[in-house]
């Protein structure tokens, strides 16, 4: 099947694939930036002892984790206009990706914070540190290090999830691949070109993760 691949057509559509690649890259980076922001806020709320602060975070995280991304996408795509909010598809796409990924990011960071022993917190409290000082100086530096790997994993999931935005006619990688299929009736060429571009994105992320963890080795350890 792959032996009979029409590489000439694939090269011909390279500019479109490249456009799709850039678009997916943009959707993913802005989407993940949004997810980190939402995730950190939701996580900060979810670890508060006061119930009414925790409640909105719990509702958000549960609602996102319990429903499919596609349903969330359609819900906003068809639901927002009914509320009189008309947004460009691309913006809806970024919002959905951020909302969806943010819930998982919140859980990842929360697990890192909960892994810090009570003794660390008590030592910091006993020395007179404020809540924010404890977070900034003691808890977060220890909590975030082990979350980097799962966060990169979440970013990779987000890159792939962004392909669903093709369903609300956002032009990105998957959509660009579909164009080869539609224009030339060559679905496999389109899919292979798309897959190669996703692979490239995946390795870019892996490379970034490697650089990050090299620069942030635990001090005093190899």
């Amino acid at each position, binding site marked *: 099947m792959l032996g009979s691949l029409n590489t000439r057509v694939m090269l011909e559509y390279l500019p479109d694939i490249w456009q799709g690649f850039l678009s997916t890259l943009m959707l993913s980076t802005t989407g993940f930036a949004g997810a980190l922001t939402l995730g950190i806020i939701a996580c900060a709320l979810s670890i508060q002892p006061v119930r009414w602060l925790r409640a909105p975070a719990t509702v958000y995280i549960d609602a996102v984790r319990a429903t499919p991304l596609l349903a969330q996408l359609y819900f906003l795509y068809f639901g927002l206009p009914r509320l009189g909010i008309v947004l460009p598809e691309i913006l809806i796409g970024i919002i959905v990706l951020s909302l969806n990924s943010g819930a998982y990011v919140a859980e990842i960071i929360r697990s890192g914070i909960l892994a810090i022993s009570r003794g660390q917190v008590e030592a910091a409290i*006993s020395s007179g540190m404020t809540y924010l000082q404890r977070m900034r100086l003691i808890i977060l530096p220890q909590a975030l290090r082990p979350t980097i790997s799962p966060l990169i994993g979440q970013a990779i999931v987000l890159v792939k999830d962004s392909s669903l935005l093709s369903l609300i006619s956002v032009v990105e990688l998957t959509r660009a691949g579909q164009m080869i299929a539609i224009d030339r009736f060559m679905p496999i060429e389109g899919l292979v070109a798309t897959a190669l571009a996703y692979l490239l994105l995946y390795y870019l992320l892996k490379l970034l993760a490697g650089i990050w963890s090299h620069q942030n080795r635990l001090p005093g350890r190899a």
Partner: protein
Amino acid sequence: MIEFTNLNKWFGSLHVLKDIDLAVTKGEVVVVCGPSGSGKSTLIRCINGLEPFQKGRLVVDGFDLGSSSVRLRELRMEVGFVFQSFNLYPHKTALENVTLAPIHVRGLSKAEADDRGRALLEKVGLADRMQSYPHQLSGGQQQRVAIARSLCMQPKIMLFDEPTSALDPEMINEVLDVMVSLAREGMTMMVVTHEMGFARKVADRVIFMDRGAIVETADPESFFTNPQSERSRDFLSKVLHH
């Protein structure tokens, strides 16, 4: 300096501190001992507000811990706490562990804090380990860093919660030596420990607790040689079996 008046504490329905009356004066060294679960750790954890209590009064260095307006953070700056499990910050060097709170809580400059921190680490015999991370240090060394960390805040009171219980036997003395010299310098100390040698050497008083209540208070010599209550005799016979 520390004054408990009729203090009571419950964990749910469990009555963990019962009618505690105790006054510790400036410069006094008080050793607290008793069987496990007798409330001795809870007692000293009340002193810096790590544990709340439900009834009675506790005044520490002029701070009334029962009042709603107590500025716990200010109190904690004056009260050092040394944990059984050291609780050093694993991502900071020994020197950074010691200087972190002085810089961020006391507002010392880094240079000032470093000077103070180096002097203290030298004092506890760790001049050559200042740049080491906690995982590179032995238990005894870690606990000495933890003591230096508390001292660097220049507290008025030092609390020790079984500081040698997590240590290998050969490391216990290096920690006790530091505590003995601290006691001799006149620090106000409350120490939860079963180290009878330490108690004999520097304690002004020994308090024996059982089931949440103070059962006996005595000077160390008479406590160890002639305990008054049945329960302390029973306890000592189990601890001093050699």
